[in-house]
């Protein structure tokens, strides 16, 4: 075993909020060894960020460590009271990187200055030599032209570059431990891959121990040597990365892995976790996950389980490992295996159905000040009835703009959009517009922003019924609302409540019910699961799939995450800077990606499998690799149903590749 650099024992952290006491961390323990990467995985509100903040003494003012100890170099730092004591640790021994690089830097200081001041402050280095050191650091984190970049301000850097700067300033004092709190969540996937790579390299060069805080199991698989799973303020399972991914023991870990859409097979329902993580104001008895666990035992409701040993490195806090539960545990795993082995439902090919939406040469220009730029350039595709068509791309790819244009909440600059053969990007008569609005609905990304906080659920769901006069009397309206709520798995009594009483997943389902109640035919879903907790995503995806089958819906699914889209889509279009660069059937696209951008994107998406992730090489897409100066690109069908944006030469290459 390597040297232990940090040890947290039975840490309990409380907050006082307006007279109430909330326990955010309920006795969590971890060890951190020299040079290793430990990932703490958990959903929002599980206490993972709060837990690691206590290692630096930067809890919010109303929080305190109420029990346990945190040992660093043999000293219990949780007993530190004064700022002076903490200053010996922060930045020097333990450093931290935050989630959002856009807000982590002071906007009115040059980036060089912000790194330089760390060096001067900690080592008292004079200006010139700390400046030189800073430039060296900038180079080390992969920033070109460091001399020039030194003098620039944060807003002149892209998100990924800013995160590099943040990392540079965190490692400026060669800390022993680097804590990364969701360091790539705010970044695009291709940038994420580069940042993860950078952190790995720095860790090796500087021989640091790294703690990752994340909700993304793909990232975990990519970076972690060991994994600790956190739920409701406790670590419930920890072990080597392979042990957790291959042989999870706690029902929560098992369910979480099984519910990942990345690993889902099309046509088979995802194993979803019902409900939402518990509210920490309430007292938790027994196993916190029990109410959401359909296989929970009686004891799970009674007594909190201790840690049971699985291997020397793998422990889990679940009664299933108790010897008296052995038979029951076997029974469950058999049931699971049976369900997982069930053959997926046969899928029809919806492209044989009639075309519902047809987009032809769509261009959308926006004015930014006096300059005009194209958010969407010459985009064409068809969506067939009963199909799930996905638009995938990173931020700024124009995918949302296409959705909005079809939804008629955004202008178009050129091209046509046809819905059921009728051109809709023109001024519609009131009757036409009403009919269109009823048939095409939208589901939003952020369930916190998309519901009117001051209206009751009943009104929110009824809004469409009122607008399209879809009921004869009050009784029928209520019945329709109740039906819509049932279909998304909400209880009747919620109708009289306000949205803020619900969790994110419940709110997203309310949003879906609002769209469904008017019986639409096409639903535009703009990143409907990216703002949701991991354990909730499968719920919503299953629901969308189920509703599609039941009501014969058609989806336009907009997402940034290719791996999620694979599970749900029939066909996928990949967008880059306003243009569709490749369009193909879901399986085809994954099996034979052609466009270099699609390949980069596919490679960058972290897969929740440590073996795959370990082997992976980061590909950076550089649009300059295309030479379109003479040989102009066009929209080419290289195989039936597989389109690429390429020039003659490239098309020939792609075709050869497909034939090989």
């Amino acid at each position, binding site marked *: 075993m390597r040297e232990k650099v940090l040890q947290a024992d039975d840490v309990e952290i409380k907050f006082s909020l307006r007279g109430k006491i909330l326990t955010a961390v309920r006795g969590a323990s971890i060890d951190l060894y020299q040079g290793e990467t430990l990932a703490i995985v958990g959903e929002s509100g599980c206490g993972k960020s709060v837990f690691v903040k206590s290692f630096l003494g930067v809890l919010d003012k109303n929080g305190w460590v109420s029990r346990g100890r945190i040992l660093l170099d043999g000293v219990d730092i949780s007993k530190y009271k004064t700022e002076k004591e903490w200053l010996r640790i922060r*930045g020097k021994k333990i450093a931290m990187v935050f989630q959002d690089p856009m807000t982590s830097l002071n906007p009115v200081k040059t980036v060089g200055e912000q790194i330089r001041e760390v060096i001067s402050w900690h080592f008292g280095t004079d200006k010139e030599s700390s400046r030189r050191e800073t430039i060296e650091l900038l180079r080390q984190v992969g920033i070109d032209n460091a001399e020039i970049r030194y003098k620039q301000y944060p807003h002149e850097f892209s998100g990924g570059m800013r995160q590099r700067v943040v990392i540079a300033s965190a490692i400026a004092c060669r800390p022993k431990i680097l804590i990364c709190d969701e360091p790539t969540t705010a970044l695009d996937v291709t940038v994420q891959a580069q940042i993860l790579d950078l952190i790995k390299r720095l860790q090796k060069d500087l021989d640091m121990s790294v703690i990752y805080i994340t909700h993304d199991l793909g990232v975990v698989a990519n970076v972690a040597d060991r994994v600790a799973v956190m739920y409701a303020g406790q670590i419930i399972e920890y072990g080597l990365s392979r042990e957790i991914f291959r042989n999870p023991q706690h029902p929560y870990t098992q369910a979480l892995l099984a519910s990942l859409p990345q690993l889902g097979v099309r046509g088979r329902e995802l194993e979803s976790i019902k409900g939402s993580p518990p509210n920490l104001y309430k007292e938790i008895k027994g196993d916190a996950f029990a109410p959401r666990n359909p296989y929970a035992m009686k004891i799970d409701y009674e007594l909190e389980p201790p840690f049971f040993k699985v291997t020397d490195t793998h422990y889990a806090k679940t009664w299933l490992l108790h010897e008296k539960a052995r038979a029951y545990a076997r029974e469950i795993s058999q049931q699971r295996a049976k369900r997982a082995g069930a053959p997926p439902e046969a899928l029809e090919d919806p492209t044989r159905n009639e075309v519902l939406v047809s987009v032809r040469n769509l261009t959308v220009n926006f004015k930014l000040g006096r300059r005009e730029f194209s958010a969407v350039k010459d985009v064409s595709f068809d969506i067939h009835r009963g199909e799930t068509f996905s638009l995938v791309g990173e931020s700024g790819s124009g995918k949302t703009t296409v959705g909005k244009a079809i939804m008629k909440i955004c202008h178009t600059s050129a091209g046509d959009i046809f819905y059921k053969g009728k051109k809709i990007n023109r001024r519609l008569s009131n009757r036409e517009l009403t009919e269109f609005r009823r048939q095409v609905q939208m589901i939003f990304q952020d369930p916190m922003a998309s519901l009117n906080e001051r209206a009751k659920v009943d009104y929110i769901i009824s809004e469409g019924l009122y607008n399209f006069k879809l009921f004869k009397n009050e009784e029928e309206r209520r019945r329709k609302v109740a039906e819509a709520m049932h279909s998304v798995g909400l209880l009747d009594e919620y109708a009289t409540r306000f949205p803020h009483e619900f969790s994110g997943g419940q709110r997203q389902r309310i949003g879906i019910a609002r769209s469904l109640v008017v019986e639409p035919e096409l639903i535009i879903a703009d990143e409907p699961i990216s703002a949701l907790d991991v354990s909730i995503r499968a719920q919503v995806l299953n629901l969308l799939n189920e509703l599609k089958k039941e009501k014969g819906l058609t989806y336009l699914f907009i997402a940034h995450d290719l791996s999620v889209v694979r599970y749900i889509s029939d066909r996928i279009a990949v967008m880059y800077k306003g243009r569709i660069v490749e369009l193909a059937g879901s399986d085809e696209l994954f099996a034979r990606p052609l466009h270099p951008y699609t390949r980069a994107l596919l490679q960058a998406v972290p897969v929740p499998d440590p073996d795959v992730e370990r082997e992976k090489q980061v590909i950076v897409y550089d649009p300059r690799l295309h030479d379109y100066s003479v040989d102009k690109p066009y929209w080419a069908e290289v195989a039936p149903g597989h389109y690429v944006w390429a020039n003659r030469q490239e098309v020939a290459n792609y075709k050869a590749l497909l034939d090989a």
Partner: protein
Amino acid sequence: MRRYYLSKLCQALVTISLVVLVVFALLRFMPTTGYFSKEEYREMDEVARNAYLRSLGVLDPTLVQLKNFLAKLFRGDLGRSMTLYPKSRIQDILRDKIKYSVMFNAFSWVVSAVIGMPLGIAMAKNKGGFVDSAGTAYVVAVRSIPSIIIHFFVQVYLSKWLGLPMLFKMNQPASWILPTISLSLGSIAGYAIWLRRYIVDEENKDYIKFARVKGFSQNYIMVRHVFRNAIVPIAINFPSDLLMLISGSLVIEGLYSIPGMGGILIKSIQAMDNNLVQILVLLFSTLSVFGVFLGDIFVSFVDPRIKLQDKED
């Protein structure tokens, strides 16, 4: 960058012209009887009255009056007061008065910055504690009680307790103290409350939390990051403050009989001294509009993000 300044400058000019035009037009709505005292009005007959009005130039068509006004202005002639200080040159009137107002405002500006800013910082650092509560109580009192009442009590009681003169005399510096205190009370509260708010806002930002985990001390963060950024939205007003030094406080100059600019506008309006009103409005609005303009430019030097916006234009 130049385009940014130009467009701001154009906006400022348009605003000033609009203000002058509107005021010019409004003044023509006033009944002509206002140009006479009651006795004069009774003594003069119609012909005499008209002759008098014509001599003042108020019977010309509005556009002609506007043209004359502007033409004179371009020659650098501010004209003469008509009724309030009959036949005096406006330049002379203003020159006499401005010096008093500038003097007091400058004193008070220094005093309020020196007291108000540290108070705001102390309140933010001590959030929820005694200094904060006491400071907040002071701010609430100053901002909610009508200023006349406060100034009046300051004059009556402080003069008694501190043994200071109640009325202003130029050659007696002790008499300058009370007006300065009175003038400063409100702006101390302003500096304190806004600086406190900006500091608290700033402290909640991610980069300040990040600075903490980098191992800087609270004091270092406060001085190098928080204060510097929190001062920007306050500093945006400095140019305005500087230019508006010339406008006196009506109440305070009234109470201490300071012969400054305060009240001259109201008196001139009441006396329907059109020339004087026009010049004053032009003066005040130009200064305030340019104060905002200079503030924008000033901030564009302090905050690098503004330059970027311009590039994207």
